[in-house]
C-alpha cells in the first residue's frame, strides 16, 4: 500500500526536524508507542500498542532513520511483528519551509501481513490515515512547545478530532 500526503505544521523547520528524529519525542508521538530504545546509531527497537477503537495489537520491531539531511529530509524504515501480523514500511519525509511554517511531504510504502492483512483490508486505509494524523498532530504539538516546558501529553483521539479536518490532504492507494 502506498501512503503519501502532506501535512502543514505551524512551527519552524529546524524544530520540526529535530522533533521528528528525537527518540524521546518519537516515543511520545508514535501512536501507542510504549518503548523506543536506541540499539545503534539512528536505530531503535520499539514496542507499539497500535490499533483503532477496540481493535488493537502489540507489535515489537525496529525503527531506523537513514539518509539524514537536516533539516530537509530523511528516510524512515519501520519493521514490526506481533500477534495480529506484521507491518513493514519505508518512506521519505521531506520538510519545506512555507511562510514560517513547515510543510511535511511524506511518501512511502507500507506492507501489512497476517490477520490484519487477511481480514482488515476495508479498514487499512482508514487506519493508516488515522495513525498518520495522530502522529503529525502530536509532532506539531511537540515542535510548538517551548523547550523549557514539560513535554506535552497526547490525548490522541481528542487531538485527532481537533486537527482532523483540513490539515491532511493525502492520497492512499493500494
Amino acid at each position, binding site marked *: 500500500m502506498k501512503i503519501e500526503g502532506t501535512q502543514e505544521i505551524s512551527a519552524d523547520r529546524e524544530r520540526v526536524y529535530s522533533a521528528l528524529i528525537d527518540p524521546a519525542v518519537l516515543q511520545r508521538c508514535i501512536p501507542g508507542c510504549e518503548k523506543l530504545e536506541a540499539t545503534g546509531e539512528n536505530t531503535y527497537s520499539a514496542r507499539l500498542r497500535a*490499533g*483503532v*477503537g*477496540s*481493535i*488493537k*495489537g502489540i507489535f515489537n520491531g525496529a525503527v531506523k532513520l537513514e539518509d539524514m539531511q537536516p533539516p530537509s529530509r530523511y528516510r524512515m524504515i519501520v519493521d514490526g511483528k506481533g*500477534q*495480529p501480523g506484521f507491518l513493514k514500511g519505508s518512506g521519505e519525509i521531506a520538510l519545506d519551509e512555507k511562510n514560517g511554517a513547515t510543510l511535511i511531504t511524506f511518501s512511502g510504502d507500507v506492507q501489512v501481513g497476517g*490477520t*490484519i492483512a487477511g*481480514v*482488515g*483490508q*476495508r*479498514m*487499512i*486505509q*482508514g*487506519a493508516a*490515515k*488515522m495513525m498518520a*494524523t495522530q502522529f503529525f498532530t502530536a509532532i506539531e504539538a511537540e515542535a510548538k512547545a517551548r523547550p523549557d516546558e514539560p513535554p506535552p501529553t497526547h490525548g490522541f*483521539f481528542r487531538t*485527532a*478530532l481537533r486537527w*482532523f*479536518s483540513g490539515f*491532511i*490532504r*493525502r*492520497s*492512499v*492507494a*493500494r
Partner: protein
Amino acid sequence: MIPAQFDYIAPTTLDEAVALLSQHADDAKVLAGGHSLIPAMKLRLAQPQLLVDIGRIKGLSYIREEGGQIRIGAMTTHYQIESSARLREICPLLPEAAGQIGDVQVRNKGTIGGSLAHSDPAADWPAAALALDAELRAVSSKGERGIKAADFFVDLFTTALEQGEILSEIRIPIPKARTGQAYLKAAQPASGFAVVGVAVSLVRDAAGKCEAAAVGITGVASKAYRAAAVEKALAGASLDEKMIAAAAAHATDGIDANGDLYASAQYRKHLAAVYARRAITAASR
C-alpha cells in the same frame, strides 16, 4: 476463530456496569449484542481482558415517546426497531435503516447502541443518527451527559464516549409534520456493510419546498458525517429532479474518502452522490 481468554461479568444494573468499567479502565469492553465485538475477538484483533455484558441489565431495551422525543434504549435490537409499527408512522427512517442491516440473525441480536458505540465506518446506524439529529446519552460513574450525533463519531471505530462511559439511550426529536425520510445503501456483497449509505430526513413547507434537510452519509470516509453542503443546497429549494441532483452532487464535499478492494475512493464518492440523489428523491415523495 477462537478468542483469547477474557473474564466476563454480567451486571444487572447500569450503576454496577459503569463501576466495573471505571475499575477496569482500558482492559474492559462493553458487550452489547456482540455482533461486531465478538467477531473481532474471534480473530484476536480485539483482546479485552474483561467483557462487561450489559445484556442482563433490565430497562435498556425500549422504544418510547417522551418530551417530544423518541427514546430508544441502547440494547434495543435492530429487529425491534425494524418491526415497530409506531416508528414506521412517526420516524420511518429508523425501521428502514434497521431493515437493511446485515441479515436476519444479525438484526435479531445486534443492538442500536452497540452499533453506534462501535462506530464502524460502514455501519448503517451512524448515518441515521446524524440525519435524525440524535442525541446520544452516555452514563458513567460521574453521571450522565448527552452527546449530539454530529459530535459523537470521531474517527475510525472511535467515538466521543469517554473511558468508563456507556451509551444508554438514543434520543431523537419526533419529526415534524411534512417530514420525509429515506435510507438507501449500496451493500458490500460479502459483508452487507454499506459501501455507501445515505440517510435523509427533510421537512417540506406548506408549498412543498424543502424547509430543512439533514443528510447523514456512512461508508465513504473513516466515519459517518453530515453532508452539510447537500443540506445547504436543499434548504429553501424546490424538490425537483434538477435541484435534487445538484444538491446531491455535493455529497462528498470536503470529505477524504477511503477506498478498498471492492470500491475505490473515486467510485465511493460517485456512489455517495447517486445514493444521496436517490435518497433525497425518495424522502421527498
